[in-house]
């Protein structure tokens, strides 16, 4: 069996080259965000990244913690594809917002459902699809329109990534993953997309220890696994009510 376990986050991101496209899970707080992979990438220092994520980091919602905003602060990003790229408060603009305003970072803003569908399409070998979302708005600019059943739809292209940083709860040694609650969000979809998917997990168990019926991400999508050993520097409460 292939060994997919990396002993450190630094080792797991070490080969990421300048100019790579990286997807990362992120939605409404630290729960499903691959915190340690992001910080390892900051230490690694790769430049000219394209980041595909729900936000551009540092949006100031709920728990304030150092998410992928650190990659912008560290000037590693040249482009971001996101649905919610700006901070919620004008008083606290994010690093990304400043860099976008200054023309240092390019932004492609995408409706959130279109974003995950474009990521799934890339994973599924679907190069493009039509969706009603965005017709006759700024999102429609330059996009082909076609009518289906009396409804105008936009042609949206698949997204592809070199790497995906995934936050999951538990992995077996083959890379089969399960998540906790709303950790899922973009993670299972991005995990299927990237050429090299790296999972950050709380636990690594033997193959066969996860019930095959409850696996969310099949191991064949996951190339690298790293276990979190440090305590996070943001509050994390573990309720058992919906735990696998």
């Amino acid at each position, binding site marked *: 069996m292939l060994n997919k376990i990396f002993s450190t986050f630094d080792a797991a991101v070490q080969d990421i080259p300048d100019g790579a496209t990286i997807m990362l899970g992120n939605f409404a707080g630290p729960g499903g965000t691959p915190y340690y992979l992001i910080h390892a990438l900051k230490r690694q220092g790769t430049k000219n990244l394209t980041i595909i994520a729900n936000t551009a980091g540092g*949006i100031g919602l709920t728990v304030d913690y150092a998410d992928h905003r650190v990659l912008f602060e560290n000037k590693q990003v040249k482009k971001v594809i996101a649905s919610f790229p700006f901070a919620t408060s004008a008083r606290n603009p994010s690093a990304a917002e400043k860099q976008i305003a200054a023309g240092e970072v390019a932004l492609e803003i995408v409706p*959130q459902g279109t974003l995950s569908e474009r990521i799934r399409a890339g994973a599924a070998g679907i190069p493009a699809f039509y969706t009603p*979302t965005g017709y006759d708005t700024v999102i429609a600019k330059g996009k082909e329109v076609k009518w289906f059943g009396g409804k105008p739809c936009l042609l949206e292209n698949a997204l592809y990534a070199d790497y995906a940083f995934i936050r999951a709860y538990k992995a077996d040694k083959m890379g089969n993953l399960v998540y*906790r*609650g709303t950790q899922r969000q973009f993670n299972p979809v991005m995990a299927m997309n990237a050429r090299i998917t790296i999972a950050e997990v709380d636990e690594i168990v033997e193959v066969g220890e996860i019930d095959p019926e409850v696996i969310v991400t099949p191991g064949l999508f996951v190339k690298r696994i790293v276990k979190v050993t440090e305590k996070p520097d943001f509050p994390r409460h573990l309720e058992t009510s919906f735990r696998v």
Partner: protein
Amino acid sequence: MKERLSRETIAMRIAKEFFDGAVVNLGIGIPTLVSSFVPEGIDVIYHSENGVVGFGPVVTADEMTAKADVDFVNAGGQYLSPKAGMCFVNHADAFLMVRGGHVDFTVLGAIEISGKGDLANWMLPGRGVGNIGGGMDLAFNVKRVICATEHTTRDGKPKIVKQCSVALTAPKCVNLIVTDIAVIEVTPKGLRLKEYAPGWTVDEIQAITEPELIVSPELKEYSLF
């Protein structure tokens, strides 16, 4: 100046729209309040964009230490309580539900609404930038789009306008507008005034609404029951 209804009253009025078993997505702001006022006997299934369906109430400030869990939040980052029958899905499936017409209602805030039901609510006022988030997908695809909003801006300008002046979230998407002074239905013929807040006249409402209002033959006072 006449009295306007509270945010809670707007929320209470919107909650009346739901039917038993309805799948409902609530935006941030007034919409979030709606969940507190759903009538007894109406069991609503809440949908959140991040991929949780059928969850319980938002965790209150008092319960925070005992119950807040970073792995159990809604799209606004609020902590949730569990509820029997809830389930978790990935983000693409959460929006399969939205785009596929499996969500019955969404309640959204508004910056501007036009007489044709165009909605503008994503550009951040005064910053020239905006967060589309899931609002565009919801506005385009949910079966019934309800806007919860103050009737006018802070400086008294109409929010219900002839033509939206800021970037649209979606054209012709709003079905019902519930404000602090009126309930207005968007119809193919125009905006139909259905209900007014206590003490307000049709003329007074029309005076701070740009498009011409069609007065419903069943026009009545704001109805909460």
